[in-house]
Structure formats: C-alpha cells, structure tokens
C-alpha cells in the first residue's frame, strides 16, 4: 500500500472542503472495497477522508410513503430495517444475498453504490485492463470471462457490475443525493452508473469532489410483492452469475405494474425496460413473462464462457415473475 494522508471528517462541510482542495482524494466508507484495492495498489489516493463519523446513518420515512437512507447506513442495518422489510422486501433480500455477515456489518450504502468490479484482471496488475489503466487493453476479452457481462458491454470492457443492492435500487427507481461545495443534486440510480463505452474507468456520474449523502426510494405499491433471486456457483457468499430483482402487481389477470432489474449480466445494474414494456398491461401469464424476458435479452452478446448467462437470465426472469404471481395479493 502507498502512503497517504488520513483525515477523519467531523462534519459534512469539512469533508466537502477537504475533497475539493485535494485532487486525488477518496472517501472511506466501510472500507471493505477501498482498503482492499489500496492494499493491491489498484487505488492510490494521496488523501483518504474517513466519512464514517458523519451524521448520515439514518433511515427515515419520507412524506408520501418513500424512504430516505443515509449514505452511511450499514448494509446489515438497512436489510434488517422494518421500513425496508415491509415496503421493499426486494431490497432487503438483495442486500442479504451479498457478501457475508461481517462485510455487511461494515459496508455502507454509499460504498456499495460505488464498489468496483470483480473482474479478475482488474485485480491482477500484471494484466492489461482498460478500467484500471485507460488504453491498456482488455485481458478478459480473450481470457477468463465467465463472470463478465452480456448486456451493455463495449469492445473496451465487459466487466459486470458486482452489486446486489444496486439491482434492487434500480428496480425501485431510487435516486442518489450527492453533495459538493457547489451544492446538492439528485441523480436517478439508473443514470448513476455509466456504460463502459470507450471510457470504462469512468464508472459513475459522480464528480470527484461529490459525496453521496443519501439514497431516496419513492413509494411503490407493487414493491410489497417483490423479491430478489440470485443464481451463483454456491448457495451463499458468491457474486451473482445472474440475479433478478422484480416487483409485480396484477389486476384482473393483467399486469398493472412490473418492475425488473438484472444483476450479474450487465455492465451496470441493469434496469430491464424492454421487459417492462412488454409486460405493461399484458396478461399475467407465463407466456407473457417469457416474451418479456426474451425482449430484454435480445440485445445480449455472449462470449464462449459467459453465453450461458443469456438463457439463465431468461429463465430466472420468468421464474421470478411466475413466483410473484402466486404471492400477489390482488389475484383472485
């Protein structure tokens, strides 16, 4: 690990001024990703601003039925929170499907949003990787790519976004509140993460001097009937091969609201808008679910080791929707 200056920020203003004054600074949340990457010298900040003492650890109800989650709320705390378990079971389940108990106890919401990929070559400093070193090339294209994405890839990078939590947030249309010395702005979570395009090292819409302060989840009736399913190489403690976050509300046998997002297959948490379009007002039948899954995966590009994900994702989407149909309270 390289040497760096450590600053524990006592309040938000101090953190924002420190980051705007220092071009190569990083915020430290739970540290479960940043400490690891600094040890590997993949991240080399000159200054680390510890934000864990900032007053951003509240989960609060918003007028109108939404929920506001502070950026420093621990993943385990959020998953266990009664408001989340009741209103957004998909989010609670997604978080509990990620990492281990010890890691979820330390990891924060802000850090989870900004965690970096698990592509093996990104971690291996001896291999070329455009995300780590712009212009170096992409070792995954010809190498091991079983865990890379099939949607949203570019010739420059195939890395899958690793977060489970973000998949649920994408399905729920959450917004990320960010703050800098220049002011506050809100970014829809579906615009927060970028496609790799020609600049895979730029992963989010966040400017270097911006602090994530909160995530806001709007009210969604359908979310009461929602779930997360994660398919992986073992039953627990592994990143997703494919995951699906879905919410479904049915009325008179027709889909009234369907929300879908995919993990493990996209270069960013993948909101499945094509599938949602097919489902809008469609009969709530397995046939329609199949067509929706088909529509979403139509643009997928598989490679020798990850093409299996395309069919797996299709089947998982259908299976989750079929399951939600049986738990939807409004169906007679």
């Amino acid at each position, binding site marked *: *690990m*390289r*040497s*760096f*200056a*450590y600053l*524990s920020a006592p309040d938000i203003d101090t953190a924002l001024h420190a980051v705007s004054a220092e071009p190569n600074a990083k915020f*430290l949340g*739970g*540290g*479960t990703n940043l*400490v*690891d990457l*600094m*040890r590997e010298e993949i991240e080399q900040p000159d200054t*680390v601003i*510890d934000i*864990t003492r900032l007053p951003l650890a509240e989960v609060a109800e918003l007028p109108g039925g939404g929920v506001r989650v502070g950026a420093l709320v*621990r993943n*385990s705390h959020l998953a266990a929170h009664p408001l989340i378990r009741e209103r957004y079971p998909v989010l609670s389940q997604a978080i509990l499907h990620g*990492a*281990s*108990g*010890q*890691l979820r*106890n*330390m990891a924060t919401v802000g850090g989870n949003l900004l965690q970096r990929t698990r592509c093996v070559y990104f971690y291996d400093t001896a291999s070329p990787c455009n995300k780590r070193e712009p212009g170096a090339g992409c070792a995954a294209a010809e190498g091991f790519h079983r865990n890379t994405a099939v949607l949203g890839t570019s010739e420059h990078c195939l890395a899958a976004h690793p977060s489970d939590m973000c998949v649920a947030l994408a399905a729920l249309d959450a917004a990320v509140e960010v703050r800098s010395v220049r002011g506050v702005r809100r970014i829809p979570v579906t615009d927060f993460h970028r496609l790799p395009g020609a600049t895979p090292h730029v992963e989010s819409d966040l400017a270097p001097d911006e602090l994530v302060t909160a995530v806001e989840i709007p009210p969604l009736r359908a979310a009461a009937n929602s779930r997360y399913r994660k398919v992986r190489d073992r039953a*627990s*403690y592994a990143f997703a091969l494919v995951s699906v976050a879905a919410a479904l509300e049915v009325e008179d046998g027709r889909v009234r609201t369907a929300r879908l997002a995919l993990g493990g297959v996209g270069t960013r948490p993948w909101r499945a808008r094509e599938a949602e379009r097919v489902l809008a007002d469609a009969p709530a039948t397995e046939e329609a679910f199949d067509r929706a899954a088909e529509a979403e995966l139509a643009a997928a590009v598989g490679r020798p080791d990850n093409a299996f994900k395309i069919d797996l994702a299709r089947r998982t989407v259908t299976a989750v929707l079929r399951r939600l149909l049986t738990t939807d309270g409004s169906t007679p």
Partner: protein
Amino acid sequence: MRVTMTVNGHRMDADDVWEGESLLYVLRERLGLAGSKNACEQGECGSCTVFLDEVTVCACLVAAGQAHGRSVRTVEGLAEAGADGAPGLSDVQEAFVAAGAVQCGFCTPGLLVQTEDLLRRTVAAGAGAPSDAEIREALAGNLCRCTGYEAVIEAVRLAAEWTERGRPAGGPARGEAR
C-alpha cells in the same frame, strides 16, 4: 497517529500507527493480541473476525483510523465475557473443543467470534436456537480448510443448547460429542 480503543474492556493506546495499517495489524502487532488471525487479508475468509462496537467485522479491512475511539472485542475477550466472569473458556469455546471442531485452528478464532455473535442475536436474545440453515448462513464468511464444517456446525448446536439450558456441571466430556 495514535489510535485509542477499548479492547476487551480495557482502554488501549497504539502509538506511531501508520495510516495504512489495518485494525487487525494494530491488534496483532502493536497490542500483542495475536488471537485474531491474518489469512487472506481480503475479507474473504473471516479468520480476522472481531466485534467492533458490538457487530462483527473483518478486521483486515478496517483501516486503523476507523477504529479510533471505538470498542473492540477479540477472541481473547470471549472468555472474559463468560457468564460469571470466572476464568475459563466460554460456552462457545468449550463447545468447539467438545465437538472436535478445531483442527489446525487457524479459522477458529474467527468462527468463535462469529458464533458468539450468532448466539447473542438468537438464543441469548430469547429467539430460540438457530436452525442449521441459519448457522450455515451466519458462518458463510468463515472459511475452514480442515474440518469440512460438520463438526463446526455440531459445535454451534451444542453451544446454543448450553446457552439455552446451561452447560452440564463438571464441564463437558471433551471429544465425546462427535
């Protein structure tokens, strides 16, 4: 920098800590508490599990500065946490011995701390003994290369039973539970 923490109930200062050190390094190399193990240093194996302010974390991924002013309990503090404060092993520790859940022992400190946490949240909180599925999920972040986990799960069941009904008088017959 100086890092001050309450470790196993005692206030401790570590001086001249380099910013890049982890909580695990400070505990082992500066405070002489070598119970928590350093195996992967990547958050994968759980050998370094400690309580930080009452929740378990991988100490290898906690930056030293993050622990400043906070309370830490390590495997060395488990026996002290025992019911009557008398010296000796805790229920969880005795159960691991009784069930033969320790082979090379490298994973053991982390498993003990994580098991202690599981039992606090379940049986000791009046929520009943954890199911096998709960035990497996709670220990998913603790890897063991030796035991194949069956004896570990047996040890957790035994510790849960003792927490609920009390440890048998005269101590357990070591090795018999297997």
